[in-house]
C-alpha cells in the first residue's frame, strides 16, 4: 500500500470515527487511528466560563431580539399560522356583521315567543300558530311589531352596545332609551342615527298571537 492509498484509507476510517462509528480494526496504521480517535473525543469546552452568560447576553441584545423574530418568521409553518391569524382578525368584523342580519319576519316572532323552542321547528310550523286572519294576510309580524322599523334598522351599521349580565350568565345588550306613555300602555323611544322608533309595552292576549284549537 503506497502513501496515497494509506492516506485515502486513513481519511475514510477517520470520517467513520468522526461520525460516531468505531475505528476499523484492519486500519493500516492503528497507532495513528487511535490518536485520531483521542482527538475526536477531546472536548475542552468545560474550560469555558462564558457559555451560559454569553447566551444570556446575546439574547438580551436588540440584535438578538430581531434575529429571533427574523428566524421565527423564516419558519414556513409559523409564517402560515401568522397569515391565518391575520386573515381571521381581518374577516372577523365582516363575519359578525353578517350574522347580525336576521330576516325581518323571523326576529319579531322569536322575540315574542321566548318560551317556544322554535329554533328547531321549520318556519311554516311557527307561522301556522298565528291567528288565521293574520296568517292569511301575509303580514304576520308587521301588525304586531309595526313600531320597530326593521327594514331601516338593517341598513344601519352595526354598533357595539355594552354587554351586561342579566343573571344566570345570560348576556343582555344595554341601550339607552326614553320612556313615554302611550294610549294602551307605555313604551321606550330609542333613537339611532338613522331612525327613531318606539318599543311598545302593552298587555296582549294569547289570541293575539296563537290560534286556539279545541281537540
Amino acid at each position, binding site marked *: 500500500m503506497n502513501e496515497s492509498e494509506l*492516506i485515502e484509507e*486513513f*481519511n475514510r476510517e477517520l470520517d467513520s470515527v468522526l461520525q460516531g462509528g468505531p475505528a476499523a480494526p484492519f486500519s493500516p496504521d492503528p497507532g*495513528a487511528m487511535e490518536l485520531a480517535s483521542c482527538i475526536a473525543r*477531546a472536548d475542552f*469546552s468545560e*474550560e*469555558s466560563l462564558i457559555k451560559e452568560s454569553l*447566551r444570556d447576553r446575546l439574547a438580551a441584545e436588540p440584535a438578538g431580539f430581531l434575529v429571533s423574530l*427574523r428566524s421565527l418568521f423564516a419558519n414556513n409553518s409559523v409564517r402560515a399560522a401568522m397569515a391565518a391569524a391575520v386573515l381571521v382578525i381581518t374577516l372577523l368584523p365582516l363575519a359578525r356583521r353578517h350574522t347580525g342580519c336576521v330576516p325581518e319576519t323571523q326576529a319579531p316572532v322569536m322575540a315574542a315567543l321566548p318560551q317556544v323552542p322554535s329554533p328547531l321547528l321549520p318556519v311554516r310550523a311557527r307561522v301556522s300558530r298565528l291567528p288565521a286572519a293574520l296568517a292569511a294576510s301575509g303580514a304576520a309580524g308587521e301588525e304586531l311589531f309595526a313600531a320597530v322599523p326593521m327594514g331601516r334598522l338593517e341598513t344601519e351599521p352595526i354598533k357595539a352596545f355594552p354587554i351586561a349580565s342579566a343573571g344566570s350568565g345570560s348576556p343582555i345588550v344595554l341601550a339607552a332609551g326614553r320612556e313615554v306613555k302611550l294610549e294602551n300602555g307605555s313604551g321606550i323611544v330609542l333613537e339611532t342615527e338613522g331612525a327613531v322608533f318606539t318599543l311598545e309595552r302593552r298587555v296582549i292576549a294569547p289570541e293575539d298571537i296563537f290560534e286556539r284549537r279545541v281537540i
Partner: protein
Amino acid sequence: MTFNEMYDRYFNKVYNYVRYHVGLPAEADDVTGRIFEAALRNFGTYDAGRGPVQGWLFGIARNAVIDWARARNHRGEVSLEDAGEQAGTEPRMEAILERKEEAGLILEAVAGLDERSRDIIALKFSSGMTNREIALMTGIGESNVSILVYRAVKKMQTFLADKRKL
C-alpha cells in the same frame, strides 16, 4: 434553525476550534464570544441554500482566529506554543489537566504543528465538516486536506511518543 439553537448546537465545537489555536482558556472565551457576537449580527445574511450552517459559522470563527493571531503578533505577545506552556501554570488549567491529561497532551501536540496544519486539524476535529467543505473554506485542494490531516496526525503521534519517552 434559530440563533439560540445554533448557539447550543455549536458552542462547544466552536470553542474547541478556537482552543486549538488559542493557548489560554480565558482568551479562547474572548475569541469565542466575538465569534458568536459576529454570528448574531450577521445571522440574517445566512442563506441555508448556500450551504450548511456550520460552514458559515466556522468561516466566521476562522476569520476571528486569524484576526486574533494578527493582533497577537502585532502586540508582540508569546507564541501559541509558549502560551500552551504557560497555560499549564494557571491554577485552573492545572486542575483541568490533572483530570484531562490526555486533552492537555493533545493541545500540546496540536500547538507543535505549523499554522496551516493546526488550522486543518482544528477544522477537521471540531467543525464536523468534510474534507471537501474544509477544502472549499481554506482554498486548499481536497486531496491536500487529506494529506495534511494524515501527516499532522503522524507528526502528533511522534511528538507524543517522544513525550512519553521523557
